[in-house]
């Protein structure tokens, strides 16, 4: 990445810190993060783990965040998911008037995030630390009633946004978290989120991340999760928005019998590029991973999924399974799936499968012989391709929302109504 870009980032940073109201974070932290970023540099396409990302999009990005929050009317926001308490951030700033009252989020408490999140020297995590002004710090305590929470990051302006979220799920607590990123603008926008999840002993966290940003957006994010003894972390990633998107996920299975499951659906069309790098680090015995990926690339779109499973020598009897599938729905579309295993001990069970192909001709012919229009048959088969992963979403209202979101991207709303009926 060019030094010219870093110079511009530094200049935008200085101007932003001078103009912005301070928010909960100290300026010193933010300046330090910038210095670390400048020293480290941005990743380049020559880096093996970044070769599929569209880093060029950064050249055109505007990194300056909004100085204050716009105030959208509640009806401008996407409909809430029934039963989930909602916290709203607009243009990166907490919007209490649009959010659930603190007393209404059950066994969870929300404060504004002051602390730094661990960056592990990752460039985009540092970039978020440098520019991010506000964020949510959520603690979930054990309770008879699991906590259902939606954190909505909403963009009202095309300014850059740096969503920040830390979630700590206490021992034996249960959380269902919807993290939703919605861009309302068609203009080019840069969004760079940082999320830290800690799932303590015996706790469970189901995390639904919906990336539904605008179609001109450049999206990067860093998600780190650690999962303790007997705890479970289930991540659903839905990638439909953004022109250039890069998702970096690191999950540490830190305690014995910790388990994770990652279900990812990515739909890209036109010139979209979706790059996913998911690392699961098995550090303890009897840890388990199940990873499913379904991607459909149409037009000239590119989708990459890089799934690295590390099994440390301390992780006896680790068990991992990867099922990665790509569907090419356009002549010039590209899908790159890379299941990778790095195993440092014996007595593990790791399976993986990765396939990329076009629509199955035999299935298509079968549907045609039943009189179904070719176009409908093709849409139906595309839908069928992702449906097993979508079916894993256990919140019916959310599942319906996601199905509609996917269907509208596939221009298939009408036949979807039939599928759901």
């Amino acid at each position, binding site marked *: 990445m060019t030094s010219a870009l870093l110079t511009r980032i530094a200049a935008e940073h200085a101007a932003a810190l001078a103009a912005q109201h301070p928010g909960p974070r100290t300026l010193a932290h933010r300046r330090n993060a910038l210095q670390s970023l400048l020293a480290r540099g941005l990743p380049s396409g020559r880096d093996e783990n970044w070769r599929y990302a569209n880093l060029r999009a950064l050249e055109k990005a505007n990194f300056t965040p909004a100085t204050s929050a716009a105030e959208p009317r509640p009806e401008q926001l996407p409909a809430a998911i029934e039963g989930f308490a909602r916290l709203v951030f607009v243009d990166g700033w907490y919007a209490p008037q649009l959010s659930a009252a603190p007393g209404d989020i059950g066994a969870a408490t929300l404060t504004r995030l002051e602390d730094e999140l661990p960056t592990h020297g990752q460039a985009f995590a540092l970039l978020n630390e440098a520019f991010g002004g506000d964020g949510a710090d959520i603690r979930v305590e054990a309770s008879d009633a699991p906590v259902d929470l939606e954190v909505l990051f909403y963009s009202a302006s095309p300014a850059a946004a740096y969503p920040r979220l830390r979630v700590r799920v206490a021992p034996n607590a249960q959380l269902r978290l919807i993290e939703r990123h919605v861009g309302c603008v068609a203009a080019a926008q840069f969004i760079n989120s940082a999320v830290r999840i800690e799932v303590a002993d015996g706790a469970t966290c189901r995390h639904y991340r919906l990336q539904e940003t605008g179609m001109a957006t450049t999206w990067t994010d860093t998600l780190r999760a650690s999962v303790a003894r007997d705890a479970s972390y289930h991540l659903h990633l839905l990638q439909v928005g953004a022109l250039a998107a890069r998702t970096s996920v690191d999950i540490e299975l830190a305690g014995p019998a910790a388990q994770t499951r990652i279900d990812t659906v990515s739909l890209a069309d036109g010139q979209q590029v979706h790059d996913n790098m998911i690392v699961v680090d098995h550090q303890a015995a009897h840890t388990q991973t199940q990873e499913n990926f379904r991607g459909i690339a149409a037009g000239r779109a590119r989708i990459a999924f890089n799934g690295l499973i590390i099994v440390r020598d301390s992780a006896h009897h680790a068990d991992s399974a990867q099922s990665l599938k790509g569907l090419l729905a356009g002549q010039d579309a590209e899908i790159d799936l890379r299941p990778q295993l790095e195993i440092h001990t014996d007595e593990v069970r790791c399976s993986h499968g990765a396939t990329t192909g076009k629509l199955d001709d035999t299935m298509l*012919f*079968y549907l045609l*012989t*039943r*009189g179904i229009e070719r176009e409908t048959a093709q849409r139906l088969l595309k839908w069928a391709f992702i*449906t097993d992963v979508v079916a894993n979403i256990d919140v019916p209202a959310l599942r319906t929302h996601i199905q509609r979101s996917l269907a509208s991207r596939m221009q298939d709303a009408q036949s979807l109504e039939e599928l759901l009926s």
Partner: protein
Amino acid sequence: MLMIEDLHVSVGTTAVLKGLNLTVPTGEVHAIMGPNGSGKSTLSYVLAGRPGYQVTAGKVTYDGQDLLALAPEERARRGVFLGFQYPVEIPGVNNVYLLKAALNAMRKQRGLPEVDAFEFLGLVRDKMKLMQMPETFLSRGVNEGFSGGEKKRNEILQMLVLEPTLAILDETDSGLDIDALKVVASGVKSLRGPTRSIVLVTHYQRLLDHIVPDRVHVLAGGRILRSGDHTLAHELERRGYDWVISEAA
């Protein structure tokens, strides 16, 4: 009426059908029998329009229309139905959705409005009863995890819902036990009538004990070598195919 004249079909560089002639008048049930590799499945696929089969000569008309000029879905909407020898599993597409979408495609072709949901469910339930299929099949993926016999029943169920005017059943009897064979046969028989033609492609005569055909044809080496009434099937069962082939040579 289905008319096939001097049909030549190649798959890749291999000629499979080599001058096949066959006429199936409306209202009749014809059986096509023949040894393995004789071209029976090729004939079924060509009639349904499967890509990969090149028609190098000859013509096929159905009710006066050039069948080969139509796309597979257009053939289906004009009443042609292929029952697959190996029905395809399509996980993620519901049986009930497929049935409804297919039925509505037929109705649209016939100038009828989309089927009413209530009426549709009643219709499907009746046909499922006939095929002795539990209703839970409706919400499952098309043929997903079905046993061989269940898949064949599902083919016949689709046929009963769609009410084609020309049904080509490619080895629908293979892999069925005696009870399932009876169920499938009763499904086919329920469709038999003066406005429909049925082509049964089969290896064995046992299906023809349940559905007595109007005509039996022997397909071997890519051509129809002999035709006769239903007693020909019994003769084939007794004597095999070799005598037909050597008499024709």
